[in-house]
């Protein structure tokens, strides 16, 4: 264990001697490079470095957090003194005392699992590769292409954490992302399509990326969307592609199972632990241990080992996602979901990789299509959001198809579906046997963004509202 975590531990113990019931300190050292290739030219090449220390203390049942953009001992001391003052200010206005449960100290250091280091290729070679991918997409759009943009970013974050229970954790998280967006117009119908790849790992994401399943695919999608019909509106059965199933698991269920949201009275699942909330056969999991997945990590940002947490088992709501504080409130063991965006933030209960588990005996996608008389197949996920307290969620698809008499029909554009969480989960009437988790993204909550992924099998929801204009 390095000298820095020893200093962080010392900082925590000093805070305890000054009246803190618990303290943790985390520091981040990181750097990243980003490149944009647009319409055949490499532009906006940038690099960014950052470092800093954050200290959190619990005094008289109230939390105080402070941070500085420096890693010196004086910066740590300044952050500690400031955090203690902040906690005392909070204690003067707080009614209900927060606490942290008993913890066994952990000491560990994790190195990254990368197959190809970021510096294995010089920047010139990366630019050449990105230009090749971008130009392939633009060429595939032919004369219909208006704008073609590829953005690439790589970065490594070294995190060190210590707390007053004696935990000292170091881990390194390398992330790599490539996104391609193409805008095209056919007969005055203008559309945009995006492909996004990201992983917890190294440069292999870029070196193994081929134009056909990436930029050429986006070009093909945008041309198809330009020629597609507007979506119908109304209520109908929906077949979800795994990417949309993932949005359903993340937005509709996952946010409602975050224990701080639940504690604050902002979850539609309030008081439903132990009760059936989804159709039987539906199992929903949040798993930070999936190798290489975008939301994975070895330890959460409070030093708790990453875990596979079952939230819904066979339709029954069985578990919440906890940070240290909520685990103490509910009298359970923390389950590794306390995450921060950076050293300056307080840990929130967050998801990692969230998915609906496939049913090994479930139907194939072809059989699901045949079972629908009139409905929609949402073929590619885009984004979503949820109002957890009211249980209202929205999923937006990049592309969709009509289903008529058990067969796939016309392509549709601009399709979003909305639903009420408890209705939608109980209306899942088929869970497929396939599985895919390819929706890496950054999930936002209270101003903090953390990497997540989501997925699942194809599923059929018997009825949802489609927002269309036909």
């Amino acid at each position, binding site marked *: 264990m390095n000298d820095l975590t020893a200093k962080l531990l010392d900082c925590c113990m000093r805070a305890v001697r000054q009246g803190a019931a618990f303290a943790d300190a985390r520091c981040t050292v990181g750097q990243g490079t980003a490149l944009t290739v647009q319409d055949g030219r490499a532009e906006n090449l940038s690099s960014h470095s950052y470092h*800093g220390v954050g200290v959190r203390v619990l005094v008289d049942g109230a939390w105080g957090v402070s941070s500085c*953009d*420096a890693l010196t001992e004086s910066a740590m001391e300044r952050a500690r003194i400031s955090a203690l003052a902040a906690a005392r200010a909070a204690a003067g206005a*707080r009614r209900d005392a927060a606490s942290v449960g008993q913890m066994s100290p952990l000491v560990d250091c994790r190195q990254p699992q990368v197959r190809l280091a970021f510096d294995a290729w010089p920047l010139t070679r990366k630019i050449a590769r990105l230009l090749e991918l971008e130009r392939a997409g633009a060429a595939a759009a032919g004369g219909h292409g208006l704008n073609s943009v590829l953005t690439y970013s790589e970065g490594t974050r070294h995190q060190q954490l210590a707390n007053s229970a004696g935990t000292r954790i170091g881990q390194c998280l390398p992330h790599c992302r490539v996104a391609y967006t193409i805008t095209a117009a056919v007969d005055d119908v203008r559309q945009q399509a995006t492909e996004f790849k990201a992983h917890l790992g190294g440069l292999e994401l870029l070196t193994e990326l081929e134009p056909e399943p990436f930029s050429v695919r986006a070009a093909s999608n945008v041309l198809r969307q330009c020629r597609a019909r507007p979506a119908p509106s109304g209520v109908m059965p929906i077949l979800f592609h795994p990417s949309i199933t993932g949005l359903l698991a993340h937005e509709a269920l996952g946010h409602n199972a975050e224990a701080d949201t639940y504690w604050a009275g902002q979850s539609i699942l309030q008081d439903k632990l132990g009760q059936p909330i989804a159709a039987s056969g539906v199992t929903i999991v949040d798993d930070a241990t999936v190798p290489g997945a975008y939301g994975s990590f070895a330890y959460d940002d409070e030093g708790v080992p990453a875990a596979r947490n079952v939230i819904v088992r066979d339709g029954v709501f069985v578990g919440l996602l906890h940070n240290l504080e909520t685990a103490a409130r509910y009298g359970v063991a923390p389950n590794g979901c306390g995450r921060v965006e950076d050293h300056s933030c307080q840990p929130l209960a967050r998801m990692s990789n969230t998915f609906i588990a496939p049913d090994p005996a479930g139907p194939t996608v072809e059989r699901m299509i045949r079972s629908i008389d009139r409905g929609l197949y949402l073929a590619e996920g885009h984004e979503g959001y949820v*109002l957890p307290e009211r249980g209202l969620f929205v999923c937006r698809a990049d592309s969709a198809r009509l289903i008529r008499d058990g067969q796939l029909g016309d392509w549709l554009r601009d399709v979003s579906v909305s639903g009420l969480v408890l209705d939608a989960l109980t209306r899942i009437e088929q869970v497929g046997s396939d599985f895919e988790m390819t929706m890496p993204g950054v999930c936002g909550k209270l101003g903090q963004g953390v990497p997540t992924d989501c997925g699942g099998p194809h599923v059929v929801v018997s009825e949802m509202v489609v927002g269309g204009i036909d």
Partner: protein
Amino acid sequence: MTLNLDRPDEGEMLAMAASAAEQARRCGADFADVAITWSRHISVELEANDVQLCEQHETWHFSVRAFVGGGMGLAGGDGPPQDLHGTLVRAIELARLAGRDPDFADLPRPNGPLIDARLLDLYDPLVAEMCLPDAARLGRHCIDQARAIDGGILLSGDLTFSASRRAMAGSTGVRMQRAATYAEVDLFAVARDGDDIGSFSDQTVSRHMADLRVAPLAGRVVRLAREYQHARPCRSGTQTLVLAPLASGSLLGSLAAATSAERLRRGRSPLARLRGQAVVSPLLTLADRPLSPRGIYTSSCDSDGSPRRDVEMIQSGVFAEPLNNHYHARLWGEPNNGHGTRQGEISPTNLQVAPGSQTEAELIADVGEGIYLQAGSLDPDPASGDFSSALDFARRIEKGRLTWPINDAMAAGNLLEVLSRVDGVSSDYRSDPGLILPAIRIRDVQISGTQ
């Protein structure tokens, strides 16, 4: 040259930035500029009727933009700018690797004095010197006030007070320094009776403590959270939609952003090739006013150092003038209106929509049957303008009156088509500092409901 890290001074920061910009030019950059920002912020988080925590942070940020042959490299970091030389060398390396841009000529040169910072009035010592115990007491006061109105309410939210100092200098002689403060209170109320749940969130933002409207905010979110209980489904079909200011901002803000010269040039805007044409209802006039005193997005110059000026992008429904920056103004042979960002893009500032002649209540009173969207984003696609969005906080209008809240409903359409059907703009409006957002009424919007 070193900075006093305990008492950051814009003058010292500017001198350091100017020296680094000149050094970058000597090291091989055709043009360069350097920005240094310091900020301190305190915040109080409220959760479930209690003060959850207090925070205090101090941050530094610095960045160097270097241009070689029109290619741009941007290097920067968080933390005090202790190695600006290494950063500028990195920026130049990146600029050399970027593709040449034959359309790039230069960075802006000084063009007369910038507007006097005192006229913009962006700094309030009361915000800068706000202390955590006082902020925590204000947070507690919000909770007590909400509970006094309605003892069954659950209130969460946060209060933030920040002060920042920024300096920017370019190798062409451009110089900018600024001190500003910012205060924001966000409150979120939940009313719950079993599974019957209503909620509402809103915020007040300002540059000055005197402009912060905390007391009305707490009362408003509590009242509206209760009003959004007992939600019911609504029917599908085309209906009149009245967008309150918290909802009209998503469509009108998207229209303002679509006037970016960069997006127009790239074909990424629904307004591409429509300049000079009637694009929306003649009742709509949209202006961007970056010099509004105390405005949330107010500043004297953009990130290139170009002086900002007011732009009326949409005049009585006609797309009159795009937002631009130094690069696009030169490319199109037009005056620069100063809306550039450090990444070379173009961004709106304070959106002001010309108010209409009827009050919001009168707009609603004229609707026999329709929907009132109080808050929520309709979020159009930036390239096509198409949207398909949930009506998050909406109520039914019947015979000119607001009735029950609706749930599980969506609206769909196209930004320009829908805004062409605006038949009313309210005379009363929401006026967060610098912004003017009235309500708008739109005929024949496609609504999907479960009834």
